[in-house]
């Protein structure tokens, strides 16, 4: 048997051992569909270009994980329950700006922003309300937070354990990707190096105590939303992933002890074949670097698992219902690219947070792709198409050029190269340049945006109903926070914060145990963040543009 015959036999064995969804794998004309077309490399095999599983969506559809959060914890809890009732299969939490920046709702910085762009979380009490009545042992939960990720993770563990769910049973993801904050999203608190220590502490803590948890979701989504190209998104994100691997190894972890739990988050933008090529190239690059450069031997360490979200920045405020078509095509690119989990944007998100009705259409869009189009019936249905394979190769080649630049800037360390690119503004500059180039092309009419620079007839203002956040949210949240502060024992809080400061000053100590103890005293998010900042300092971007 030659090598391809062996690989084929291995794929057939893996495919045969996988469960099958209970649906007919045939077309509407009754044509039975073989699961895979073409020769190797095979899905579920190195370098995983065609998918990380042998059977992909023939066994299980991707997780339809809708991002939600607004107002108070109780408001968001109600939206979570509605999404689960509507057939959502995972939860994803959006926090408000003050929470993302480690500020309490009663901070002067929080004025006008409490509960506006996500849910407000000040103390453990809010996290308890957020997941009230939801079995955290049964539903996987994603939390999109970065600067104060370790503190919010501590609250999540404490809330789950108070509800009787042991930490080892918790499954889900915390974004916890601080490097892209300095490059794109700008929701940083501490300087890069102590921030990366917090990431490594969370990686080590979950590797030891939470085997079902993904401690980092290395995120290109925000890099793309900030204006990067698809190639930059891919390259910067994977470079950040390599940086976290190097940081965790430097902290004393063995690569195969944590790499299987790293996950990724990419943007699904409008250029359909470039996007498909990007998703496929991402898996291939990661597999090769993890094996060859970082010496990972566990195949699970080679597999890049990814969540995708359709491109919020592509949505137009003009003719907002057109966004349903954009989202459908972007979601299709993610499914054809073989993602494990997907969020589809609601058509009204160029105007405000989604209404419940618009969020439901977005979920229904995924369900239509999954159940009506047939694209989930065949593994990597575009694999082998000359254009798709060429695009995959081309995206990969261009990403490798960017890795060379970063590696050189770090003198052979991707972690140091990423730090260098943050410190000298290289990432920010590259992204700004790309977004400006795109905007000029749009202004010149070279790139058509339907309803914006072409086909503007029928631009009706106020076409979409939008979600308004009731101003009472801020008052309610402030009252809630005041009540929690009233009831707690301040001396206990102060002692716990003292331990956080002491552990922060000792880089050899994992901070998570002290953080969990601190949040259990109902220390607020800002109090804990301030304790960390007293040791770590705060980061400010130099205002260059």
């Amino acid at each position, binding site marked *: 048997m030659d090598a391809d015959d062996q690989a084929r036999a291995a794929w057939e064995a893996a495919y045969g051992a996988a469960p099958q969804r209970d649906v007919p794998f045939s077309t509407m004309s009754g044509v039975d569909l073989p699961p895979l077309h073409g020769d190797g490399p095979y899905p579920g095999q190195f370098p995983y270009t065609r998918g990380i599983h042998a059977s992909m969506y023939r066994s299980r559809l991707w997780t339809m994980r809708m991002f939600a959060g607004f107002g108070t914890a109780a408001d968001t809890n109600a939206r979570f329950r509605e999404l689960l009732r509507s057939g959502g299969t995972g939860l994803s939490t959006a926090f408000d*700006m003050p929470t993302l*920046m480690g500020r309490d709702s009663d901070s002067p910085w929080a*004025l006008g922003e409490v509960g506006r762009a996500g849910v407000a979380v000040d103390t453990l009490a809010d996290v308890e309300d957020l997941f009230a009545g939801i079995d955290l042992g049964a539903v996987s939960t994603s939390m999109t937070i970065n600067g104060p990720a370790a503190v919010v993770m501590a609250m999540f563990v404490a809330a789950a354990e108070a509800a009787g769910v042991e930490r080892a049973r918790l499954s889900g993801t915390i974004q916890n990707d601080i490097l892209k*904050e300095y490059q794109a999203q700008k929701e940083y608190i501490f300087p890069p190096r102590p921030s990366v220590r917090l990431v490594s502490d969370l990686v080590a803590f979950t590797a030891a105590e939470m085997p079902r948890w993904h401690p980092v979701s290395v995120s290109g989504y925000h890099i793309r939303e900030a*204006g990067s190209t698809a190639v930059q998104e891919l390259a910067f994100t994977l470079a950040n992933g390599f940086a976290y691997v190097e940081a965790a190894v430097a902290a004393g972890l063995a690569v195969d002890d944590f790499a299987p739990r790293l996950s990724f988050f990419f943007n699904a933008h409008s250029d359909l074949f470039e996007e498909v090529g990007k998703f496929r190239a991402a898996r291939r690059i990661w597999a090769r670097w993890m094996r060859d450069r970082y010496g990972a031997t566990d195949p699970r360490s080679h597999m890049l698992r990814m969540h995708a979200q359709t491109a919020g920045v592509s949505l137009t405020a003009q003719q907002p219902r057109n966004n349903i078509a954009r989202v459908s095509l972007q979601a299709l690119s993610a499914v054809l690219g073989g993602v494990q989990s997907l969020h589809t944007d609601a058509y009204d998100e160029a105007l405000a947070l989604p209404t419940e009705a618009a969020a439901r259409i977005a979920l229904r869009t995924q369900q239509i792709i999954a159940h009506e189009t047939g694209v989930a019936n065949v593994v990597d249905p575009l694999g082998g198409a000359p254009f798709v394979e060429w695009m995959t190769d081309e995206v990969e080649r261009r990403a490798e050029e960017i890795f060379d630049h970063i590696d050189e800037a770090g003198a052979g360390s991707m972690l140091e190269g990423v730090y260098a690119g943050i410190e000298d503004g290289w990432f920010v500059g590259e992204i700004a340049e790309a977004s400006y180039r795109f905007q000029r092309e749009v*202004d010149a009419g070279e790139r058509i945006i339907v309803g914006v620079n072409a086909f503007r007839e029928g631009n009706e203002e106020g076409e979409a109903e939008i979600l308004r956040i009731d101003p009472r949210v801020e008052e309610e949240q402030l009252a809630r926070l005041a009540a929690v502060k009233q009831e707690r024992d301040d001396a206990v809080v102060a002692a716990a914060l003292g331990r956080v400061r002491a552990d922060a000053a000792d880089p050899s100590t994992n901070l998570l145990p002290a953080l969990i103890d601190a949040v259990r005293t109902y220390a607020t998010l800002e109090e804990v963040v301030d304790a960390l900042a007293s040791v770590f300092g705060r980061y400010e971007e130099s205002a260059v543009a």
Partner: protein
Amino acid sequence: MSVVERPRVVLAKVGLDGHDRGLRVVTRMLRDAGIEVIYLGLRQTVETVVAAALDEDADAVGLSLHNASHMTIAPRMVEALRGAGLDIPVIVGGIIPEVDVEPLRDAGVAAILGPGTSAGDVAAAVRGAVSGRADRGGRSTGS
């Protein structure tokens, strides 16, 4: 009509929101259009923006707001500038729902630039707001 030949505009994001793509693009659009931009960047307060406008003898202030805080922050900016004796226009860009446009105008915001506004329209809006002020006796050259 009086014309400020090379207007000076202070651009900033007030509050915690980190989405600065729009502000950076607008900065370059305006500079290409011959308008001088004092770029303050992220995490400014109303007070730091007023101080910069005073220090720089600015002709206008531009705020980028994407986090639904515009109804709180934009009117405060207008009041704070007036309180400091600066009669210069405030221009707001970002995700501003249609229903909020009229109330923002009533609060004294000079121009509201929504998503999809072209470079030419941004520059024209800034020049228009500044020349409106020049007509009322602001810093200007020519006649």
